[in-house]
């Protein structure tokens, strides 16, 4: 029987490194949720075409809407305002985020059966879905969209901060990807998740159209919110393509089937 004593310890450690790398490459399936959520984010783009910004509710020429009480808050509420980023965005995210997580779990199970290597993915899906429930549930007491000065009692402050642009679910997606990075023991994915969470925060707190304007691109009226959706969506999509290519390259180098 071949034993460790039959070769140098260094050889055995090198073999272990190769086995570990191959198993990880076969197990890694993070490209799928990245592409899936990237496509789901991009598919939301038409909903962010704010065509109903005018007229203002009381007939003013210009008006300001509160940043608190965003559309995700109460997707089925008949709020006093429907300013283009309407109930449909909320409803879309409430359906799309679980769809993305369930598709991811299904994909990992399918992949495990096909390759013979099963990785853990449920914790990421459970945390992601729980965050979505908390996000939606916390706004049930809010009663829909609000004008400035309207009381916002009963809502956790950290969540209020991210309301207004209808992109809170990007944070749910980002945190899910971060947990997946831990499960996959991939520091590259962890860095990617951190970058995406930073981008999601930016998309929730800042109008990216300002930077688009500085680049010399003039967006048509009503399209001002589109960069906040398209940029994170493309980031996920391109990242997913990159991870898919990297895993294939590793497996190809080892003569394995992805």
């Amino acid at each position, binding site marked *: 029987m071949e034993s460790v004593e039959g070769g*140098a310890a260094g050889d*055995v450690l090198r073999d272990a490194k190769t086995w570990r790398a191959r198993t990880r490459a076969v*197990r890694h399936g993070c490209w799928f949720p990245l592409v899936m959520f990237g496509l789901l984010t991009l598919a939301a783009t038409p909903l962010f075409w704010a065509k109903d910004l005018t007229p203002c509710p009381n007939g003013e020429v210009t008006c300001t809407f509160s940043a608190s009480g965003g559309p995700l808050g109460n997707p089925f509420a008949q709020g006093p305002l429907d300013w283009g980023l309407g109930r449909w965005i909320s409803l879309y995210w409430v359906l799309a985020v679980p769809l993305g997580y369930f598709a991811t779990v299904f994909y990992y199970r399918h992949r495990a059966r096909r390759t013979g290597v*099963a990785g853990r993915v449920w914790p990421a899906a459970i945390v992601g879905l729980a965050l979505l429930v908390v996000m939606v549930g916390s706004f049930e007491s809010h009663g829909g969209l609000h004008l400035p000065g309207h009381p916002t009692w009963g809502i956790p402050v950290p969540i209020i901060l991210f309301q207004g642009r209808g992109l809170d679910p990007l944070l749910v997606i980002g945190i899910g990807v971060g947990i997946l990075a831990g499960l996959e023991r991939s520091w590259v994915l962890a860095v990617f998740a951190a970058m995406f969470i930073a981008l999601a925060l930016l998309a929730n707190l800042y109008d990216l159209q300002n930077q688009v304007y500085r680049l010399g691109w003039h967006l048509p009226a009503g399209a001002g919110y589109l960069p906040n959706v398209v940029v994170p969506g493309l980031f996920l999509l391109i990242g997913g393509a990159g991870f898919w290519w990297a895993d294939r390259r590793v497996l190809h180098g080892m003569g394995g089937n992805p």
Partner: protein
Amino acid sequence: MTEPSNSLDEVVHQRTRLGILTITHEAQRVEFGFLQETLELTAGNLSRHLQVLEAAGLVSIEKGYEARRAKTWVAITRRGVKALQNEIGALKQIVARVEKPSRTQAVPRNRTLRLATDP
């Protein structure tokens, strides 16, 4: 100072079994066929090694059917994780000792390196 070779577990201290533990440690569970292909073993040989590891409580084996095909899934236990970490740690110590020999235990560069337990 304790000799690194004294830390080597007789059950784990074998290339194939170390391979099984290394691979299963990287996943929630691994199918028999993947282990066989990766470690380039016959089914009978792999089965024998799995039996030894299971008897030692280092892996758990789950048998079932998927699409009317028999499947055997192998998962590492907590005890297995600890045994693997100890073994890898001991091997690294041996390598470190060989790469940085003391003045009294200098190893010629062209000599084939063997583990301390070699006869």
